[in-house]
């Protein structure tokens, strides 16, 4: 897995620090080195990384480590919170003008995906009952107009064009008139790709902007962009002014750190992401998902969230001890069931842990409805029966079944399952020991 890197490294970094109450400066410094590397590998701009690291450091040093988390997880939690805050905590939508037509203008470098995004956006808003018109204002790239026309015909949206000999400003103006005449309430202007340092072409954008007063100027950015993303975003933002960002080609395997850089220098929201070559592969932007993609931590984050809210780590530690010494009882089983109910199914939890594959999970399929019966059965046992299941003979089984409103078969099944669970837990304990030796992976929760 590509995305496991950082979480694993942080876990390892903090292994030796287990049980400390507060994050010290030294802890955090070490962890920040890993975070910095991860962000640079993800193409987040160096300066943005520096700022970010400083902010996290400031917040993390002296922070109380939550009881349910390891110090490593605590740092990941802070990093993720700060990152999500920086990405924009909520989704941001495009706005519409109170006096139609609403005009959007697409701008960006060559090859960032403006024309495709025009089509995708038109398609999306058409589904929301808008009546869009596409305007072909790219008179420079050979066949750019043909491309927009083809895209338009695919989604059944008309394309306004005046050939390549006209001034794009005039084309844009004429396009708006055309829209008004034909009752379009939305106009999307496709402009030519240009370098942010090409002053003539940047002026042209300004002139279009002055002429048509767009509701939103959307900067289209390739998600694979490297360190240069800040220069591009800064220039377009300063010289033309932008209202939002469309991040394209996110269906690739880039970590997409450019998203963070662009957001950091423009302070403008990312509104949409392009997720493929098909016209409907266009989605609203989710800041939280992007944050964990850039960090490369996959679902470890949601695991932390869940754990934070529901696992009582002390109970889990006791449980672990019992597991190791084979003293696992029905009482513990009941406890665990209750915690599991808080956290979602055990299988879900296990799947979120990097390194735990499907194999070990096969025997673990517990029907969640059955849990209710299981609880009832255990609650109908005496204390002795719970700690020492060996004493449960035929007549005791009968009594338990009657007491819990279940059948003897169900009681038998549970006893069998309990035995399996004991075995399984032993396996996990062994596995964990083995893994520790190999240093390959580690279960974040001693309890499971």
């Amino acid at each position: 897995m590509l995305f496991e890197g950082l979480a694993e490294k942080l876990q390892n970094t903090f292994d030796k620090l287990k049980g400390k109450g507060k994050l010290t400066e030294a802890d955090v410094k070490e962890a920040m080195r890993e975070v910095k590397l991860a962000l640079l590998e993800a193409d987040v701009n160096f300066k943005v990384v520096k700022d970010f690291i400083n902010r996290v450091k400031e917040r993390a040093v002296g922070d109380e480590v939550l009881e349910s988390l390891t110090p490593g997880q605590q740092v990941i939690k802070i990093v993720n919170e700060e990152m999500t805050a920086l990405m924009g905590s909520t989704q941001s939508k495009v706005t519409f003008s109170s006096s139609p037509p609403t005009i959007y203008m697409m701008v960006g470098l060559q090859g960032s995906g403006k024309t495709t995004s025009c089509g995708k956006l038109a398609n999306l808003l058409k589904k929301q009952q808008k009546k869009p018109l596409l305007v072909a204002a790219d008179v420079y790239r050979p066949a750019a107009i043909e491309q927009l026309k083809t895209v338009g015909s695919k989604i059944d949206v008309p394309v306004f064009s005046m050939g390549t000999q006209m001034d794009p400003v005039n084309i844009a103006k004429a396009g708006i008139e055309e829209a008004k005449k034909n009752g379009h309430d939305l106009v999307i202007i496709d402009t030519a790709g240009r370098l942010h340092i090409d002053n003539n072409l940047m002026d042209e954008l300004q002139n279009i902007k002055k002429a048509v007063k767009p509701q939103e100027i959307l900067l289209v950015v390739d998600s694979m962009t490297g360190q240069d993303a800040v220069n591009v975003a800064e220039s377009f933002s300063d010289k033309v002014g932008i209202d939002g960002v469309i991040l394209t080609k996110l269906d690739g395997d880039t970590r997409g750190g450019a998203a963070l850089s662009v957001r950091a220098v423009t302070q403008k929201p990312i509104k949409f992401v392009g997720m493929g070559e098909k016209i409907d592969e266009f989605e609203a932007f989710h800041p939280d998902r992007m944050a964990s993609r850039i960090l490369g931590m996959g679902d470890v984050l949601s695991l932390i969230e869940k754990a934070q809210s529901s696992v009582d780590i002390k109970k889990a530690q006791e449980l672990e001890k019992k597991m190791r010494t084979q003293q696992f009882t029905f009482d513990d089983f009941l406890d665990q069931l209750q915690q599991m109910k808080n956290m979602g199914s055990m299988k879900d939890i296990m799947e979120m842990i990097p390194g735990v594959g499907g194999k070990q999970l096969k025997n673990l399929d517990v029907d969640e409805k059955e849990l209710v019966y299981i609880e009832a059965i255990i609650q109908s046992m005496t204390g002795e029966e719970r700690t020492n299941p060996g004493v449960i003979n035929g007549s005791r089984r009968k009594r338990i079944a009657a007491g819990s409103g279940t059948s003897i078969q169900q009681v038998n099944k549970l006893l069998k399952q309990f035995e399996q669970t004991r075995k399984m837990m032993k396996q996990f304990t062994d596995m964990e020991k083995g893994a520790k030796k190999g240093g390959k992976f580690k279960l974040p929760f001693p309890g499971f």
Partner: protein
Amino acid sequence: MFFNGWDNDKSEQQETESKGFFQRLKEGLNKTTKDFTGKLDSLLMGYGKIDDELFEELEELLIMADVGYDATMKAMDHLQKKVRDHRLEDASEVKVLLKDVLVQLLTVEEAGHQLNLDQNPTVILVVGVNGVGKTTTIGKLAAYCQKQGKRVMLAAGDTFRAGAIDQLEIWGQRSNAPVIRHQEGSDPAAVIYDAIHSAKAKDNQVLICDTAGRLHNKKNLMNELGKIFRILDREYPEARKEVLLVLDATTGQNAIQQAKTFGEVAPLTGIVLTKLDGTARGGIIIPIAQTLGVPVKFVGVGEQIDDLQPFDPEAFVSAMLDQ
């Protein structure tokens, strides 16, 4: 702009030609240069002494040029060793050494950085992710090959992107190279097949094949590319094969993965680094040269038909570091 017509292009071509390659490359890399050297010089002026802080700042410069963490660390290791070996004490001398180190890391000895057109016929397959400038590169490449006295034919193998075929057709007209095309949406392998046989029949010397942009993590599309490469191999055994990966200089660390994955389906013989006329510095080619040994053969420095420069590591790094 190039819509002024073909004749204007020609005169511009002659004009720029007189400036010579080195000058033009430097011009193309102008922005890169100003940015990089400006910083580097102010950096080195500020320091009389060579200390950790200096190395840290240089490290930052390389990272900001998309050289990537690992390759930057390697460059810094080499630089520090050289500084020790030469017993340097003055920071201003470090620049020369840094240049040496970067050139060394960038140079791919065995393969060489020149496009070899000695053998007729040659077939050039141009591949890359979406939007890096494949079709534009082919337009310029056709002109380049013609200047070397070759008869060039183009194959419109991008049957997927709307307008791609027309775009190539226009480039074909600019350089008077015939374009073999099918309908949009048709099988690209069939276009290539036809183009090969047409090139054979007309005794063309260089066949340049366009392909649709594809993200390297799309299995099916990569298999399609593999198929195209196999067709070249099978139907055109007598031709020398050149597979050029077009990389956008603004691309970050993902470019390494691109080079790796494209190379798996169609063995790369070179890289064309485009869009160097922006502020991006294209440092990503250093880790690519280091890990994959694929040489850069051309750099694209603009939208004009002659804005494609043969790559030379010395000139590239010099243009980056000298003012």
